């Protein structure tokens, strides 16, 4: 059967721009796809893949008005769309009501709804004791599967998936792709994704975009990926074996000895609404350690570092080796936007220095240094909210580091980051650690734990259950893009 016999949709000569922008995001872009195809769109962040997905589904311009025009714009009759953020896809409080919302939209008679709701939940393998459960009590992975269930209620022929696992942990990611793979049978799939480990096996066509929003390659999975393999690193794609693809680092991970004691916890408890959420019998942390805090979702990892930072009520002994810990300990939140306090990147960096009443010359000097080190010079005058995901993360780390703290505590710093930015950040942390900074981070990424951490703390159900020193020393591998002549990490 030739391709031409099948139904096909897509755009021809699409032109699209964002309002108030001088240049077009897409200039005369064409993309066609056929019924039953399974396509992966790959490209650097900001190249417009997500916007294109919305154009292909007709959400642009029907729901989102953007200046656009195209010679041909064919939209499938029945489609479903899965978005990135698990928290913004639902409009009802309960699981059953959310699927019912879709059935209502389709004017399905009420008498059939209960059975259908269960049917769609079963399809995504979402096993709940009672389908009348609050959505907000579900984990991120379960929410995304619910999103799929509610989209399946549209009985779609074509499914658009816009980085559905970007905000999920590794376990949720695997489960989600298993689900997609199962339900994708017989449907057309168009996927935008940065983490492609679990996507590749069911995809048959790959489309590659460059930084200017142009398609530069489009073809069968094997040949296209083989031919442009080096581009994947360039785009920051998480592909299988990405961690192994780098040479060994020249310096040693740790020699097993650390500096002086900087933090001591004894019979330490973190409280939330008068309940003990986390307890630690005893813990000593020394200068120059890289500590990874690991554990299941909801085990109390974030609670632990928030307790150490004094953001929650605590009991027991918490003793820093510093007189004014706030000058020596810095914290980076999971969502960098929460901690931005100024209207430009420059002021954001200078903020904590100004509070300390440092003289302006010194401030300017330090800010310039940071802008250079964190590759934010061009963004100097931009508003922090306008930065890309990677830049935001870098800015939040930069503004924490500008005080030259002794301890840097981070809550999932590589979460939602592409491979390129992740490796550069890890290089940076490694460098900081060698300069004597203690790194404490919560993470789900076991690759980071095994390659970088000198010690892991395992939290389970509010208790520190395991404390392991990692003495391995094959030495950490060389990651990222290396260092420039000033020994600065290249972002």
């Amino acid at each position, binding site marked *: 059967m030739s391709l031409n016999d099948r139904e096909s949709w897509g755009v021809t000569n699409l032109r*699209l*721009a964002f*309002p108030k*922008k001088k240049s*077009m995001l897409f200039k005369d872009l064409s993309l066609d796809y056929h019924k039953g195809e399974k396509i992966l769109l790959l490209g650097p962040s900001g190249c417009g893949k997500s916007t294109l997905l919305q154009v292909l589904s007709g959400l642009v311009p029907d729901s989102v008005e953007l*200046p656009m*025009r195209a010679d041909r714009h064919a939209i499938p009759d029945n489609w479903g769309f899965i978005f990135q953020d698990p928290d913004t896809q639902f409009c009802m409080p309960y699981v059953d009501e959310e699927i019912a919302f879709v059935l209502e939209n389709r004017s399905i008679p009420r008498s059939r709804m209960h059975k259908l709701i269960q049917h769609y939940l079963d399809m995504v393998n979402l096993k709940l004791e009672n389908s009348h459960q609050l959505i907000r009590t579900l984990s991120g992975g379960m929410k995304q599967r619910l999103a799929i269930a509610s989209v399946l209620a549209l009985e779609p022929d074509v499914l658009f998936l816009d980085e559905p696992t970007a905000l999920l942990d590794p376990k949720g990611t695997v489960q989600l792709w298993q689900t997609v793979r199962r339900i994708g049978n017989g449907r057309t799939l168009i996927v935008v994704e940065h983490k492609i480990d679990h996507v590749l096996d069911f995809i048959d066509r790959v489309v590659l975009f460059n930084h200017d929003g142009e398609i530069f390659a489009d073809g069968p999975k094997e040949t296209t990926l083989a031919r442009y393999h080096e581009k994947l690193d360039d785009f920051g794609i998480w592909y299988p074996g990405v961690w192994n693809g780098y040479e060994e680092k020249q310096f040693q991970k740790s020699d097993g000895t650390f500096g002086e004691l900087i933090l001591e916890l004894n019979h330490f408890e973190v409280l939330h609404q008068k309940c003990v959420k986390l307890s630690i019998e005893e813990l000593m942390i020394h200068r120059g350690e890289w500590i990874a805090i690991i554990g299941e979702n909801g085990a109390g990892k974030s609670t632990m570092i928030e307790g150490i930072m004094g953001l929650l009520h605590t009991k027991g002994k918490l003793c820093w080796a510093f007189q004014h810990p706030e000058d020596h300990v810095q914290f980076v939140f999971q969502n960098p936007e929460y901690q931005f306090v100024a209207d430009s990147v420059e002021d954001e960096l200078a903020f904590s220095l100004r509070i300390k009443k440092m003289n302006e010359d010194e401030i300017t000097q330090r800010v310039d240094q940071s802008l250079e080190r964190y590759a934010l010079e061009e963004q100097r005058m931009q*508003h922090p*909210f306008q930065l890309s995901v990677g830049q935001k993360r870098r800015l939040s780390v930069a503004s924490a580091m500008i005080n030259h703290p002794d301890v840097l505590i981070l809550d999932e710093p590589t979460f939602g980051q592409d491979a390129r930015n992740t490796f550069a950040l890890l290089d940076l942390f490694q460098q900081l650690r060698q300069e004597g900074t203690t790194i404490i981070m919560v993470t789900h990424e076991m690759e980071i734990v095994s390659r970088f951490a000198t010690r892991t703390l395992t939290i389970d159900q509010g208790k520190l259950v395991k404390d392991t020193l990692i003495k391995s020393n094959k030495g950490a591998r060389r990651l990222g893009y290396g260092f420039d002549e000033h020994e600065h990490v290249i972002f």
Partner: protein
Amino acid sequence: MSKGKNTNLRLNLSDILVTIVIALVFGLVFRLLGPVYDLVKPFGLHLDALLYGIWFIAAPFAALLIRKPGVAFLAETAAALAEMLFAGSGGVINLYYGLLQGAFSEAVFAAWRYKKFSLGIASLSAFAALIASIILDAGYAYLPLLAGWNLILYLVFRVIGSVLFSGLFPYALVKGLEKTGVTQSLRPVTKEDYNVLK
């Protein structure tokens, strides 16, 4: 209404949702102000009237942000409804105040045909909401029966408060928000934006 230029001034789902959410955010932030507000009440000197203006903020803010007909009224009504559903003090009173204040606030933007969204108009809209509240208070709280000086104090405080908190403050907030870039997708797309495609 003729088709063409005016069609993009109709509220779409995103406008409606954003407006209601804004009202809720203010409700949440000002819930924290609630205790402060109640604390200054007892002296009879109307110090609470100074802060009273903050309750008008949702309407002018939403209008400045989304710049379409109906959002000011919708914002204030949603705020009042939320207040009622979440058992704010005063209960059902809020609903009536919200409806009338929203309508008055909206009227000011309508009078300029939704073309002007300056600081002056924002303040005027806050002032209109204030008039609405005074009309209701006159009946509800027997305003005319207060001692003259006390009544004047009340009026002066309310005017200052409303212009400050619901004219100036929302204007500054919108300016601040514009810098973050999130406002861009809320505004109607203009002809110039389409010209880029040529």
